[in-house]
């Protein structure tokens, strides 16, 4: 089930890079990011609404490649 309040958009260049996926999984305090078996990025949908808008994922990736969308705006 997608988030009711928050969506996360990640550019393919980041999502397909196992190193970036690992980094995102580490920095997110509410476990929105995980890695698939092949190391690529997985979004944990049930945790999307737990996003605290801490921006740690945005800061950890190249500018503009990760976007947090507030669905209530």
């Amino acid at each position: 089930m997608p988030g009711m309040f928050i969506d996360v958009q990640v550019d393919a260049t980041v999502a397909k890079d196992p190193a970036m996926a690992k980094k995102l999984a580490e920095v997110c305090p509410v476990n929105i990011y995980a890695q698939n078996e092949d190391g690529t990025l997985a979004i944990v949908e049930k945790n999307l609404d737990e996003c605290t808008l801490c921006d740690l994922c945005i800061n950890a990736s190249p500018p503009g490649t990760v976007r947090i969308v507030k669905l209530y705006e």
Partner: protein
Amino acid sequence: MRFYEYESKALFRRHGMPLGKSGLAKSADEAKRVAAEIGGPVVLKSQVLSGGRMKAGAVKFADAPDEAARHYETIVPILVNGQKCRAVLVEEKTPVAQEYFAAITWDGRRKCPVLVFSDMGGIDIEEVAEKHPEHVSKTHFSSLFPITPRIAKEAIAATGVTGDALNRLTPIVFELMRVFLAYDLTLAEINPLARLADGRFVVLDGHIDMEAEARGKHKKLLADLGIGPEETRQAREATPFEIKGAEVNAADHRGVAGNVVEFDGNLGLVIGAGGGSLTLFDAVRKHGGKPANYCEIGGNPSVSKAKELTKLILSKPGVEKIAVMMNVVSNTRVDIVARGVIKGCIEAGKKPSDVIAIFRIPGAWEGEGFKILAKYGVDYCDRSVSMYEAAGRAVAKMK
């Protein structure tokens, strides 16, 4: 968390404190069997989480096993201060020469444990302290540095006890002090502590309270004593609604949301935090509102925790609307609570704008929170509306 007398005594027995022969009976037949095993006169005592058993008629003496069985039937239905009897403790009746009192509790002002001892046990200690202050000693001791028996000795001797009695009492009282510290108790009491005609001492009744916060540290002891995690040991037993609330709270370690106390009104309360909840509950009642529950959210609960609490309250029969209110928040976030509550309403099949009577949580991240509330059409207010006024608005919508 209060222990039953038989649990307190089981703990004392583990620590080698002197106890009379006894057995727990859960039927008249068992009472009869235990009495026969003990042989001779026995006392039957209701196992209930309240004082005042004697006055309520829940303590009886029997000379023969058949009489014990009859007394069992009389005792079991008696409520003592509203508390139900769990079982009956059948104990040998001992001829008592003198009764003493020993208890350890916390002195919140001195911030250390205090040992209270009296050579006038068996009766209300407050009364003894008032009428015979020279027979009551109060001795504070360290919870940081090792304790030794001399503290117990000094406390006992201060009431005028000397001779053989002093020397026999000292190790018992000292052990009580050690038990108090070992299990994070908030009360360890023996009353009466009896001296028999032959000079021996026996613990006749005991009362133990363990700090709720320390239950996790003493899981093994509690399991050994048969005290399950679902037993809250509050002034009344937890209702199924309250047990479900505790489950909601325990399911997620982030923040507090879920611990509820059930009332029978129609206005569900999603309120916080500790002090804010007390304030808001008073305010709802002052406006003539009928709360369906008390609860506390705080410590920045997760969205899912706030959601589950909301669903639980909305599922309670008779709840028509919920009021979501807190004091100006610092660590709990307005937007996180708003998300959780709205999601809870929707998952419960209700429209947030219909079922939320008022949302009054100003403070941390209120800008984001208010955007969410506006989007879903929820009636919300900021800090310019006082907690008291917000409660009044919620109550007005119930009429």
